[in-house]
């Protein structure tokens, strides 16, 4: 690719770079490796930092999973993340589409208003949201966890960018065929931006799956905790029994990593799309 890539010295340099890159990459996953290996260790072996457990055991997983808490938290996180993602995919594209493809007075103001909410940090809103949730009885409910994220300016902006690339002729043709506007959006426009939709879905799902501060504030009973909040309280409760904490951490991390291994290409592409266009 570059000029220097000719001759033996350059080849040597490249090999060194390759080795360093690989070493760095392995170092990157070292925390994950140690987490998994410790989760397979017996309490007596925890302080022995060997990478491979001498007597691997699933006992920790049995202990952690036995009372059903983790499964519950897992289901809560999954449910919340899926519903919020669906809502974002639907509403953000609907708004993005409207702002990209309709001509009407006030369009620019609506767009600016929505865009301006990007400037408001979530952390500024947690206190008013908490007050709101308290007044409406949303504290400690699934809706309470979900309501702040049902739509995002980021997603709207991303979808607007993509809908602008959809040729108007397509939509006009559908209009001539007598389709109503919602049907045009739903059946014609949306399928044309599926890469963007999956990017938005991946990004929204990830950020809700790992969300911490708001679920921490709004949930009070253990049954309603999401996985990160549950794990955090679990870790404190375990009074520093590292093998159990690592098992909990592994359980919180494993699902996304497995999904990544299967869908690697799509996820990386989606993240890049969302990052560059959003």
């Amino acid at each position, binding site marked *: 690719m*570059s*000029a220097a890539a000719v001759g033996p010295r350059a080849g040597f340099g*490249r090999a060194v770079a390759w080795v360093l890159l690989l070493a760095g990459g392995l170092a990157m996953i070292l925390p994950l490796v140690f*987490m998994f290996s410790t989760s397979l260790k017996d309490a007596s072996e925890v302080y022995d930092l060997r990478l491979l457990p001498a007597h691997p055991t699933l006992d920790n997983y049995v202990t952690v999973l036995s009372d059903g808490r983790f499964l519950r938290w897992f289901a809560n996180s999954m449910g919340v993340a899926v519903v919020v993602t669906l809502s974002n995919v639907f509403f953000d594209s609907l708004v993005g589409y409207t702002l990209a493809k309709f001509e009407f007075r006030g369009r620019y103001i609506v767009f600016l208003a929505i865009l301006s909410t990007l400037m408001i940090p979530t952390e500024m809103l947690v206190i008013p949201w908490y*007050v709101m949730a308290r007044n409406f009885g949303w504290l400690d409910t699934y809706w309470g966890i979900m309501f702040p994220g*049902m739509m995002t300016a980021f997603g709207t902006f991303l979808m607007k960018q993509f809908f602008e690339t959809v040729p108007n002729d397509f939509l006009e043709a559908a209009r001539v065929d007598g389709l109503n506007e919602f049907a045009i959006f739903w059946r014609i426009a949306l399928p044309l931006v599926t890469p963007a939709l999956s990017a938005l879905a991946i990004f929204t799902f990830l950020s809700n799956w790992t969300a911490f501060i708001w679920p921490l504030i709004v949930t009070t009973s253990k049954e309603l905790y999401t996985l990160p909040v549950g794990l955090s309280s679990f870790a404190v409760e375990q009074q520093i029994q590292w093998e159990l904490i*690592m098992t909990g951490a592994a359980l919180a991390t494993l699902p996304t990593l497995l999904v990544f291994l299967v869908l690697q290409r799509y996820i990386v592409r989606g993240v890049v799309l969302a990052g560059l266009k959003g």
Partner: protein
Amino acid sequence: MTDQALDHVARGGFWRGLSLRRKQVVWAWGFLAVPILFYALIRFYPTGEAFYISTTNWNLLTKPGFVGLANFKRLLGDPVFWQVFRNTVLYLVIGTPVSLLLAFTIAYHLDRVRFMHGFIRALYFLPFLTTAAAMAWVWRWFYQPVPIGLFNQVLSTFGFPQQPFLRSTTQSLPSVLAPAIWAGLGFQVVIFLAGLRAIPTTYYEAARIDGVSDGTILRRITIPLLRPTIIFLVVFSSIGFLRIFDQVYNMTSGDPGGPLNATKPLVLMIYQTAFSSFDMGYAAAQTVVLFLALLAVSLVQLRLLRDR
């Protein structure tokens, strides 16, 4: 029955009577109705309320009383706030350049690698998919003194003295920052990779014909053309570091914010003030400061984009 039928006809007639343009306008506002309600109630109204609460002495237990700017005055005289402010700025000014430099170096070299390219990229990307609250505990464990901490175990094996890491007023902030950089690195690498890919090869070919050195190509072609990518990543990661919370909360749960508040960021102070001390007015004033800080970063971004 007849009334309804009449009404139906009338409405149908009304709708049919509209021009295509008008119908479009009605559709547009129809699509926007629920979202506008959402943004008004869940974004704008709470923003106003945050400003309002910041001018009260509300403590959740009693009725709020108006105190003007007293909370902001108290903030200016609060040594903990200045410590926290300093920490937050440190997270930003250490975290952003370090992570960007690392990510760019990795991406720049990885871009030229063909062999096992996807595998190596995946290694760097994996931490981005982890849950910060979970990984904070793994890192907390690494930082322990011997006999349990990995880092200190390695240090003493090679005869170096143990380091206090989280139990130090100077080392704890970088120690908390490390997992945040670690987790965000993969995202930055793939964005840089995409940015590098987007540079047309003709530029490089032209430069090579002119016999320009690698370093010059990097300085004169690659970096200037990556400018939008760099600006995006600077802003994205700056905002992330300004809002750091999950790592600190979980790594210092016994003494929240580290020894002598050495690691406490603004968001943790807000959380504690609001939800441990129930000093809602004071906490809201702190959120206003956070808002202003983010606004400043965003304005700088706009400025940079316009200069282009």
